[in-house]
């Protein structure tokens, strides 16, 4: 068994009171980021990637990730026939803390549980990752992109898959496909000869509502390669789903993973949209409670990034009450990098974006989390004087101002692809990829000593 981490885990480093790395504007009176003990989640001899993290109402930390093991020397004839030759080694794994994690240290973890029920089912990588969310009963809901074969053409498909655990993560139901069958055939132009893709999705759980979103290529043609955001909704906690339908179809970048959040009674779905002139900028589409249709997505952050390529760049969003927070990379501004925008009217308009990591050679792959008490934490990976490392900024006033840039006290080597979620106590849990291993750590942000804030003030 590849996943053989002991239940009793060994903390690596005890860290707190991180020093700031930003420029002179960072003052000691500003918010302070504090870190717990980084904990390895995936196996040291595996090849982890694409982690996601969620913290339950009970404070339990849940982690999901892909393990992409080396391929077999020869694919089996059965796999070849099923079109799964290239993905047979991707597995989806899950672990949780053994109890509420309310301090900077996780005392014990569950054993890893394989989420996918059959080999070859999972398709994913660092920027097309599986997502998980929780409901108030402790059920674990998972969206992932899966492999399938078209009954009509016999060609490979990427499908929107869902599974859940109703026993606290001890086991997962067999995955089910949420998208209806597409009739077009893009196998001549799509990676791996896939006839259609229903991929790069996300998940939002609220009460008994489970909403799954993905980017759909069913209306894509050789000349018009835009995707559309599609949705399937369950009103009974994931037991059944209604028919899928387009959430919005406005020139969605087909390779930029979606992100979803809830602001009051409005659901927000972020994507990248290709605007006139070829600008592929962040956009967030809102929908009212129970609404089948999203309003036209609102352009966020004035990215002005003209790119005819594969950005593979998600726009991360989070919301608390009427505040909506978005963070995304843009190559259209000088300097390029991760920019942060916020809305104070439920996502109808966004204030001008701010650069999160001035001075970095490059910054990318942001994640954002927020709490009703005004805590906002943004994480990303960046290069300053070496390989990629994870950096963060924290706010205690709803994103109006931020701490300086703090480097995650991760082990030596490459740390990248952070993910965040907020715990009920207002702390955040961060998952990231450390070389080829998934780690987590607790992060808290506290206000400045005199109650003021320093560092970065947003418009």
């Amino acid at each position, binding site marked *: 068994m590849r996943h053989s981490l002991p239940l009793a885990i060994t903390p690596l480093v005890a860290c707190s009171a991180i020093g700031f790395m930003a420029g002179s504007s960072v003052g000691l009176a500003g918010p302070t980021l504090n870190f717990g003990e980084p904990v390895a989640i995936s196996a040291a001899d595996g*090849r982890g990637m694409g982690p996601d993290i969620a913290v339950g109402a009970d404070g339990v930390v849940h982690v999901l990730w892909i393990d*992409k093991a*080396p*391929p077999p020397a020869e*694919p089996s004839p059965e796999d070849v026939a099923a079109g799964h*030759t*290239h993905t047979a*080694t991707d597995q989806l794994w899950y672990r949780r803390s053994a109890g509420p994690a309310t301090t900077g240290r996780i005392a014990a973890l569950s054993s890893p549980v394989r989420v996918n029920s059959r080999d070859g089912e999972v398709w994913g*990588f660092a*920027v097309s990752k599986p997502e998980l969310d929780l409901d108030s009963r402790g059920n674990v809901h998972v969206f992932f992109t899966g492999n399938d074969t078209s009954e009509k053409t016999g060609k490979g498909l990427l499908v929107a898959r869902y599974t859940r655990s109703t026993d606290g993560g001890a086991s997962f139901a067999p995955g089910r496909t949420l998208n209806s069958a597409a009739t077009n055939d893009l196998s001549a*132009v*799509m*990676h*791996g000869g896939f006839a259609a893709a229903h991929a790069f999705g996300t998940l939002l759980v609220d009460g008994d509502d489970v909403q799954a979103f993905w980017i759909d290529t069913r209306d894509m043609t050789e000349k018009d*390669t835009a995707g559309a955001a599609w949705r399937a909704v369950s009103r009974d906690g994931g037991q059944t789903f209604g028919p899928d339908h387009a959430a919005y179809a406005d020139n969605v970048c087909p390779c930029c993973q979606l992100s979803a959040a809830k602001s009051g009674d409005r659901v927000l779905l972020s994507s990248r949209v290709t605007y006139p002139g070829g600008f592929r900028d962040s956009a967030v589409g809102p929908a009212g409670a129970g609404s089948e249709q999203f309003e036209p997505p609102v352009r966020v952050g004035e990215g002005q990034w*003209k*790119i*005819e*390529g*594969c*950005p*593979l*760049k998600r726009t991360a969003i989070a919301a608390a009450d009427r505040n909506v927070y978005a963070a995304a*990379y843009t*190559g259209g501004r000088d300097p*390029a990098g991760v920019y942060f925008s916020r809305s104070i009217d439920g996502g109808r308009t966004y204030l001008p974006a701010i650069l999160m990591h001035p001075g970095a*050679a*490059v910054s*990318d*792959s942001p994640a954002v989390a927020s709490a009703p008490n005004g805590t906002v934490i943004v994480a990303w990976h960046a*290069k300053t004087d070496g*390989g*990629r490392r994870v950096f963060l900024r924290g706010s205690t006033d709803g994103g109006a101002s931020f701490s300086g840039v703090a480097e995650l006290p991760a082990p030596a080597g*490459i740390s990248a692809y952070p993910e965040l979620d907020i715990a009920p106590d207002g702390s955040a849990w961060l998952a990231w990829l450390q070389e*080829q291993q998934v780690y987590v750590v607790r992060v808290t942000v506290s206000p400045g000593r005199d109650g003021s804030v320093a560092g970065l003030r947003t418009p």
Partner: protein
Amino acid sequence: MQRVLAVTAVLVALVGGPPASAGDLLIPTDPAEFRAALDARRERVVLVNFWATWCRPCLKELPELISLEKKYAARGFELLAVSLDDPADQETIVRPFLAKWFPELRSLMRRSPDMDSMVSVVDAAWNEVLPTSYVLDNSGRVRARLQGGKPVGEFEAAILPLLAKP
């Protein structure tokens, strides 16, 4: 010793040598070997093109880049393609893909799990977007970065000033 052999194999495969066989189309390469392959190309103008089978704009521009190499090879120009596909897909996707669609193209392919480690050899501040190409002059210095599917004229405009006169 194995490393020396591997580097030698890369250099032989990419610096002249016997005609490519199907097995030579794709050359798994780590960052050090990639660096060595670039060093072996000093005195030439090199277009390093990072591509992947899943990147449609990459596949659209590759035929034109191959034509560009043919057009200017005599003036010291060379295309050095580098696939950033996942190493796990090497034999099952990338090699058959090359043989089917680009039988004239010999390409390096990353052996390391991290895409950025390969691109960092020429650009420490790569923003993880494909396609990305770099024009290196005959001293190995990066003179231009072209990102996203670009018209071939933009590549031509970037390399022509660096080439030997006809």
